[in-house]
């Protein structure tokens, strides 16, 4: 990774600084907004860190039952921790699970403790949550140890493959087979629609729809299976899932507790593409990123999505703006450069003249703007037509662009994209494609220097300039980024701050708001 990022585009350092400065200005009010609010999922994640797990006989998680009971009595604004530990200390319930069960049947009433009671409750809550954070810390050390023992992949890019059967017990052998075939990273696609569930399902699941539910038990089973395979292969195989949707803080927490290695985690994806309320998303985002920072998890951002709904040339700068915002929000939450798997994609219409040169310009721009981030390079989907032969060629060019511009995480493109879920042979052919290109041209990045002032350098500078323009446009709104999201500045989707799903789960923090998790995670 060392000599890789020599500046080749001759980007104006002042323009780069300006873009970052504007992203920070756009992001700061959002961070402030996020820190003034809490959400049901942040509070439930806090209970999970304190060790509450499991579900009632109907499958409703105890964290949901307990939170709902507390909320019914005292609201969300004071935070769940003080009322819960006050109840635990002043009742005969021996533990949190009992408190949840008693609360669920209406045997407990909650209050916001004051004075000495408050001090006592807060102190007990801190102790419980700190134990959970320590478990996350120890899983991180365990990962470091295993990587040292089994080793990282021999080179870059890391090969990222997806499994998506809906059944965790089918996913496991598929994931293990994919790792044996050469995958360095396994992503388990989530069941369709999980992002809009306001609870995290429990246990091992076999009935996902076009993907497998993210649950703590599924995380544990898959990580254990990949540990076996990593041992066998002498290479640490990373596991990826999705911290997105209405439960992203809880899923991030479960990922930290079960040693997942990467998580999809984008600052605006839920707002724009899932119509989740903007405030809900930004609050949940900040918490989940703080957890990922603590857990040593690499986040993957979702800029590729902009290009699946907008033209990849016209909208190239929206990718850059999103990357800059994701970087700002990530660093504010404590993530380091090596944890920023910023996304981008090879989605330009192949019929556009010079499409490959444009792709190189965009990919190299991302590379040079974020020299120390493990960029995630996403394959073509939009212009995969069902002509698998042409698709295979397009994937070859995608791989080549990745090699020439030093991308770090390569999501393997399937020639049967838009036709079927990948067959065994599709995956094998796709990996052959990657291997051929990486073998033949993996070090071409050393030789590939676009002509100064040439097409590629000019295009990159243009996209950067358009990014600065868009950031300025965002800042011209009365309410900055929130208003820009509301009026459809990003793509065609208009997402007002008082609309979208999950708004009812947001509350402005009370003056005496208390949350030991955010306290511990923010103190670094």
């Amino acid at each position, binding site marked *: 990774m060392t000599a890789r990022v020599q500046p080749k585009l001759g980007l104006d350092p002042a323009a780069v600084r300006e873009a970052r400065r504007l992203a920070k200005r756009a992001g700061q009010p959002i961070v402030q907004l996020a820190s003034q609010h809490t959400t049901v999922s942040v509070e439930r994640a806090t209970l999970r860190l304190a060790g509450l797990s499991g579900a009632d006989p109907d499958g409703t998680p105890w964290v949901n039952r307990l939170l709902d009971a507390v909320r019914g009595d005292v609201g969300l604004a004071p935070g769940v921790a003080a009322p819960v530990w006050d109840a635990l200390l002043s009742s005969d319930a021996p533990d949190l699970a009992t408190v949840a069960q008693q609360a669920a049947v209406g045997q407990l009433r909650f209050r916001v403790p004051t004075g000495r009671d408050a001090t006592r409750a807060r102190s007990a809550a801190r102790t419980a949550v700190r134990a959970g954070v320590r478990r996350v810390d120890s899983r991180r050390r365990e990962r470091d140890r295993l990587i040292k023992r089994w080793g990282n992949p021999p080179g870059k890019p890391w090969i990222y493959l997806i499994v998506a059967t809906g059944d965790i017990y089918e996913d496991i052998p598929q994931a293990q087979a994919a790792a*044996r075939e050469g995958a360095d990273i396994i992503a388990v696609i989530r069941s369709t*629609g999980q992002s809009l569930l306001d609870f995290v399902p429990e246990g091992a699941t076999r009935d996902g729809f*076009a993907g497998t539910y993210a649950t703590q038990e599924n995380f544990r089973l898959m990580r254990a299976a990949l540990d076996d395979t990593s041992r066998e292969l002498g290479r640490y195989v990373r596991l990826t899932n999705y911290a997105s949707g209405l439960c992203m803080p809880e899923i991030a927490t479960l990922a930290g507790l079960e040693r997942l290695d990467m998580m999809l985690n984008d600052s605006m994806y839920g707002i724009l*593409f899932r*119509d989740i309320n903007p405030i809900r998303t930004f609050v949940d985002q900040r918490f989940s990123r703080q957890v990922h920072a603590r857990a040593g998890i690499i986040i993957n951002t979702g800029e590729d999505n902009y290009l699946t*709904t907008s033209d990849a040339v016209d909208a190239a700068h929206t990718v850059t703006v999103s990357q800059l915002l994701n970087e700002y929000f990530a660093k504010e939450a404590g993530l380091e450069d090596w944890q920023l798997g910023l996304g981008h994609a090879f989605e330009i219409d192949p019929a556009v003249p010079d499409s490959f040169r444009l792709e190189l310009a965009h990919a190299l721009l991302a590379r040079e703007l974020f020299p120390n981030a493990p960029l995630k390079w996403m394959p073509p989907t939009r212009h995969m037509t069902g002509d698998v032969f042409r698709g295979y060629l397009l994937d070859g060019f995608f791989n080549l662009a990745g090699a020439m511009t030093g991308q770090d995480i390569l999501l393997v493109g399937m020639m049967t994209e*838009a036709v079927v879920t990948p*067959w065994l042979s599709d995956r094998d*052919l796709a990996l052959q494609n990657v291997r051929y290109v990486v073998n033949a041209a993996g070090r071409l990045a050393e030789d590939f220097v676009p002509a100064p002032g040439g097409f590629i350098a000019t295009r990159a500078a243009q996209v950067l300039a358009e990014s600065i323009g868009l950031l300025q446009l965002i800042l011209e709104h009365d309410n900055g980024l929130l208003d820009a999201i509301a009026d459809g500045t990003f793509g065609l*989707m208009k997402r007002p701050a008082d609309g979208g799903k999950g708004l009812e789960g947001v509350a402005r923090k009370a003056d005496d708001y208390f949350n030991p998790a955010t306290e511990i995670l923010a103190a670094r």
Partner: protein
Amino acid sequence: MTSASVPTQGGPIVRPYGDTTGDGMVQLSFTLPVPHDKRAEGAAVQLAHKMGIDPAMVVHAKAMGPAFTFFVVYGRSNHLVDLSAVEVVERHYPLLSAKEANLAVKKGLRRRLVVVGGCIGTDAHTVGIDAILNIKGFAGEKGLEYYRELRVVNLGAQVSVPDLVARAREERADAVLVSQVVTQRDAHLLNTKEMSAAFREAYPEAERPLLIVGGPRFEEKQTAELGVDRIFSRGTTPAEVASYLVHEVVGNRAHTRSQHER
């Protein structure tokens, strides 16, 4: 849109074409769950024979792990294609230019024709609906937003069926256009049935908007099964959709609709 091709060989019977008329040559690839060895290649030839390919040449065989083998086979198919027995959904309406479509709406409806569209369920792939609705269009043709006499409400991705029905009512939609790209476990079929059932429940039949669904993996003949008025499959252009709308709404339905002046 499919249209019957004209047989060129003096009759409706054709065979696949490799490099010579009538040679019947086809290619295919598949995987068998057997280790790669002589027997595996023989097994591939056997399958090809049973599919009517004889002679069959296994031109490529490759082990995929210890238990599977991938094959590429070329060979001569001994089946004939009878073009006179091919069934397709023919376009039963004239293809109009944007100008003609606008004029027809203006004259026949005397108001703008309202189209509400979106991707339903959890499908986030708006590429199909955008290709048809966005002014940018598809295949060099402008989308429906470009038609002055059409009022297009594009709801985008992941619209719930109840929201779609409510919005269709609110906008007094003449037609509802739904795109479905994700097909895992037949999601596109299930979602479409849910959508059509909801509209039939919410509206008296005579007032129901036209229900149109599109996506790469639909079969155009499934309309009755899915409860929709029309299915558009791969390669449909905005002009085809616009022409259909004009034909149905202005042509067939104008009378019933004019009773509910909007």
